C-alpha cells in the first residue's frame, strides 16, 4: 500500500486533477490543477507550497555523529556550523555516487540528513564502533517547501523567525502559530525559498497557517511536475534520473563519480578518511572522463526541423526524464537525462552527460529530437548551470 503524507488531509481535496504519482512509497501530487503551468509560475513569480515529506530523513545524534557523517559524505562536516545546512553527495568505495541530499546541523551533536533513497543500512554499517544513534525519521517528520519570491514575506507573517537574518543554507528553529518547526533556507527550485520541517502530527496546522498567511501573496500548492521544471532550470540533479546510484547500477558504466556529475566542489579531499576518498584522489589527478553539463537546444534549429513537416516546433509540455543521445559531428558523445522548455527563460534546456573533450562551455553539439516520428538532431550548445539563478535566491 502506498502511504499518504501527513499533509494529505489538505492536499487530497486540493488535488482537483487527481493526478498522483509515487514517490518513495508515498503518493505525491503531480499537479493540483489540470495543468501544472500556474503552479510552475507560482514558484517563479509568487510562492508555491510543495509537500516534500516523502524525502528520506535520518536523524544522526551522539558524540560521534559528526565523525560518522564525515566518514560517509564528501563535504567536510567539521566546517558545518550549528544551524547550517550543506548539500552533499556520498559515495561507495570506488568513489561513485550513491545518493545526494542535505545535511542539517541542528546542534553540536545532532544532525538530519535527507536522501532520495533508503540509506539507513549504509549509515549503520559505517557507524560500526562509533557512539552514535541513527534513526529513520521519514514518517515522523513532515516537510513542506515554500518557494518563490514571496516566500519570505509569507513566512514572516506566519512565523516568529527572524528571516531577514537567515542566510542561504542556514536554518532556524521557530514557531508557526504555536507549532514548533525548523525553517531552513533551502529548496529544490533554485529560487528564494524555504523548507519547513514539522512533527508529522502538527503538519496540518502548519499547512493551514502557511496557506492563510500566503493567500494575499498568491500562495499556490504545487506538485511534482512544476517542481521538475524548476529543478532543471536550477541545474539540480535527480537521483535515478540524472544518475544511477552506484549501489543499484547493473553496469559499471552506469555509475558516476561526483566529478562526473560536476559536483567536484562538494568533494573535500583535504579531510582524512571518507568512503571513496582514495578513488576520488586518483580521479581528480586523472581528470574525470565525462561531465554533467547544461545544454541549450537552439530554437532556430528546432524551427527548421519542424518546418520540414509544415509544423511549428512541438515541445514536450512537461519535463522529460529519458535518456536522449547527444552528438558531435554525428558521433554520439553523450546523453541527456532530463530536459524541459523553460517558460521563464524561454529556452529549451537539458542536463547531459558529455565526454570530457566535448564538455567545454560553448561547444556546439546536437541532441536527438523526434519530429513526426522521425529522428532528427537539433543543434545545441553547452552552457553553464544553473540555467536560471536569480539574485533573490541568496539575497
Amino acid at each position: 500500500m502506498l502511504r499518504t503524507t501527513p499533509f494529505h488531509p489538505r492536499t487530497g481535496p486540493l488535488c482537483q486533477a487527481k493526478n498522483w504519482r509515487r514517490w518513495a512509497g508515498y503518493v505525491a501530487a503531480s499537479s493540483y490543477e489540470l495543468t501544472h503551468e500556474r503552479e510552475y509560475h507560482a514558484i517563479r513569480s509568487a510562492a508555491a507550497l510543495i509537500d516534500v515529506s516523502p524525502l528520506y530523513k535520518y536523524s544522526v545524534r551522539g558524540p560521534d555523529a559528526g565523525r560518522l557523517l564525515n566518514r560517509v559524505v564528501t563535504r567536510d562536516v567539521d566546517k558545518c556550523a550549528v544551524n547550517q545546512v550543506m548539500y552533499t553527495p556520498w559515495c561507495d568505495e570506488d568513489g561513485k555516487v550513491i545518493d545526494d541530499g542535505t545535511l542539517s546541523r541542528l546542534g553540536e551533536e545532532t544532525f538530519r540528513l535527507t536522501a532520495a533513497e533508503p540509506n539507513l543500512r549504509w549509515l549503520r554499517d559505517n557507524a560500526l564502533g562509533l557512539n552514535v544513534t541513527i534513526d529513520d525519521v521519514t514518517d515522523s517528520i513532515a516537510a513542506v517547501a515554500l518557494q518563490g519570491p514571496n516566500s519570505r514575506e509569507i513566512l514572516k507573517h506566519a512565523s516568529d523567525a527572524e528571516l531577514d537574518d537567515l542566510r542561504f543554507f542556514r536554518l532556524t528553529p521557530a514557531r508557526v502559530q504555536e507549532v514548533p518547526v525548523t525553517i531552513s533556507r533551502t529548496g529544490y527550485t533554485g529560487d528564494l525559498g524555504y523548507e519547513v520541517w514539522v512533527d508529522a502530527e502538527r503538519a496540518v496546522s502548519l499547512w493551514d497557517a502557511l496557506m492563510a498567511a500566503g493567500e494575499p501573496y498568491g500562495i499556490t500548492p504545487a506538485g511534482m511536475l512544476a517542481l521538475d521544471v524548476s529543478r532543471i532550470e536550477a541545474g539540480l540533479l535527480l537521483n535515478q534520473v540524472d544518475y544511477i546510484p552506484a549501489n543499484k547500477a547493473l553496469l559499471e558504466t552506469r555509475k558516476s563519480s561526483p566529478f562526473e556529475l560536476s559536483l567536484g566542489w562538494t568533494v573535500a579531499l583535504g579531510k582524512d578518511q571518507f568512503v571513496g576518498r582514495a578513488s576520488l584522489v586518483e580521479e581528480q589527478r586523472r581528470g574525470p572522463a565525462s561531465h554533467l553539463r547544461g545544454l541549450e537546444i537552439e530554437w532556430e534549429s528546432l524551427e527548421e526541423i519542424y518546418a520540414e513537416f509544415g509544423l511549428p516546433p512541438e515541445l514536450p509540455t512537461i519535463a522529460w526524464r529519458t535518456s536522449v543521445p547527444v552528438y558531435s559531428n554525428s558521433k554520439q558523445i553523450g546523453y541527456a537525462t532530463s530536459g524541459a522548455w523553460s517558460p521563464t527563460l524561454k529556452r529549451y534546456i537539458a542536463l547531459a552527460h558529455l565526454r570530457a573533450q566535448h564538455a567545454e562551455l560553448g561547444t556546439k553539439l546536437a541532441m536527438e529530437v523526434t519530429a513526426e516520428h522521425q529522428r532528427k538532431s537539433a543543434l545545441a550548445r553547452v552552457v553553464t548551470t544553473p540555467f536560471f539563478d536569480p539574485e533573490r535566491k541568496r539575497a
Partner: protein
Amino acid sequence: MAANRYDAVVIGGGHNGLVAAAYLARAGKKVLVLERRHLVGGSAVTEEIYPGFKYSVCSYVVSLLRPEIIRELDLSAHGLDLLPLESTVTPLPNGDYLARWADHDQTRRELYRHSPRDAEAYDEFGTLMYHLAFAVKPILSMVPPDPTSLSPADLRSLLKLANHFRGLGEEKLYPLIKLMTMSSADYLDEWFETEALKATMSASGVIGTFLGPRSPGTAYVLLHHYMGEIDGAFRAWGFAKGGTGSVSEAIASAARGLGAEIRTEASVARVIIENGRAAGVALESGEEIRANVVVSGVDPRLTFLGLIEPDELPSEFVQAIKRFRIRGSSGKVNLALDALPNLACLPGVGPHLRGAVSISPSIEYLERAYDDAKYGSFSRHPYMDIVLPSMIDPDMAPPGKHVMSIFVQYAPYELNGGWNDAQREEFGDAVIDTLSEYMPNLKEIILHRQVLTPWDMERDFGLTEGNIFHGELSLHQLFFMRPAAPWTDYHTPIKDFYQCGSGTHPGGGISGASGRLAALTMLEDM
C-alpha cells in the same frame, strides 16, 4: 558637434520604438530614443496612480509578442516574465455563465452544458483555425511587399506568400477567404449556436475598431488568438508580471544594454527636413538633434500631419493619411479594490478570478452597445473585458487588495457635445453600474477609480482620436494597405524618414513586430 550626431533618432518610446532602437543598437548604430512622457512604454505602461496599486494603465494583456524578439533581445534576462491568463467567463443575464478554461476537456464539458452541438463544433473549429493561423502567421514577421511593384524583392516576398497559401489546399483556402471578408458574427453563426460563445469570441474582432460584430472584415482578428496558441511556448499571449509596463521596461533595458540612449520628457516638435531628406528632429524645448535617419513610432496621423510640414509630402499621400481610419472607440477603467469582487454567477473565490471576465452575453448586446456609439454616445451597457491583474501577479496590489482592469467598448471619440470631465465621470458610472449587475459587491470595494476616454488617450498618450491601435485593424487597413499604399514597408515619401509604430504592418497590440521589421528595413538601407 559631430559627437552629438546620431545614426538614428527614434521618435516616441512606445514599445515599438524601443524594439526598433534595440535592433538598431544591436547592429552597432548610435541610437537615441525621444519620449514625450516621463516614462517609456506609450500604451504599454504600468503606473502607480493610487499608492500601492499598480495599474496597467492602457493595455493589459500581451498579445502576440513576437517570440523572435523575446529571443533575439533576450528579454527574459531583462526581466520579462509572462504568466498564463487561462480562462474566460461570460456571465449571462439568467444568472448562469459560460466559461472557457485552460483545460480542453473542461471547456468541452462546459460548452456541452450549453449546447452539445457547439461542444463538438468547438474542436473542429479550433483545428481549422489553428491551420489557418499557421498559414497566416508568417505575415506577422514579413515586410509587406508592394503588390503593384515589379522589384525583385517585392516579387520574391509575394511569391513566398503565394506559396504559403498554395500549400493550404482548397478546403482551407475558402474558409480563409471567408475569414478575410466576413463579419465575425456571421462567420461564427456558421459554426455555433450559443449566443454568449459567439458574442465573446466576436468581441475580439471589434476591439479597437469603430465597427460592430456584424461589420464585414471583423472575422479576421479571430485568427489572432490561434496565432497566439502556435507561439504558445513563448506565451506570446499572456499577462506580464508587473503589468504591461514591464514589457516596455524589459525592452528598454535590452536596448540600453546594447548601447541605445533613451531620453524621457523629450517631446519632438517636428522632423528637420533638408533637401528632401530627414536630417534630425527639433524638440519642443527648441533643442535640435541631428541624425542620419529618423524613425517615428507615433501614429501615422501625428507623424505625417503633426511632425512634418505638409508641403514636404505628396498631396495624395496626405489625403490617404487623412482618410486612414483612426476613430477611437474604446475606454479603459482601472480600479483599486479593497477586496475581491464577487461574481453573482460564480460566487466566492475561484480560478475564474484569475482569468478574464467578459461582459458579452449575446451578439445583440454587442450590437446595442455599438448602436449607442453610432449615434454619438457611449454605450450605456458596454462590452467589457475584465481582468484582475493582482490575482495573477499578487505584487500588483498590497497584500489582500486588488486591482481591476476594465477595457470598455464603445466610447466614441466623437461624443455628442464632446468629452469633458463630467462626461468622463458619467461614462465611468455607466461602466460601474453595468458591471455591478454582475458583481453585486463592486461599489462597496472600490478605493480608487481611473477612467480613460478616447479624449484622455489622445491627450495623455499621444493616440490620435484615442485609437488604441494607431488606426483600425480592419481589413482594408492591414498589410498592403497599412497605413497607406505604397508606403507600407516602413519607408515614407521622405528619404531617411521611416515609421515603426502600430500604424504600420502588422498593426496594433503589444507584439513589437512593427518595430523589429522597421529596424531590419532601415538596416538594409543604412
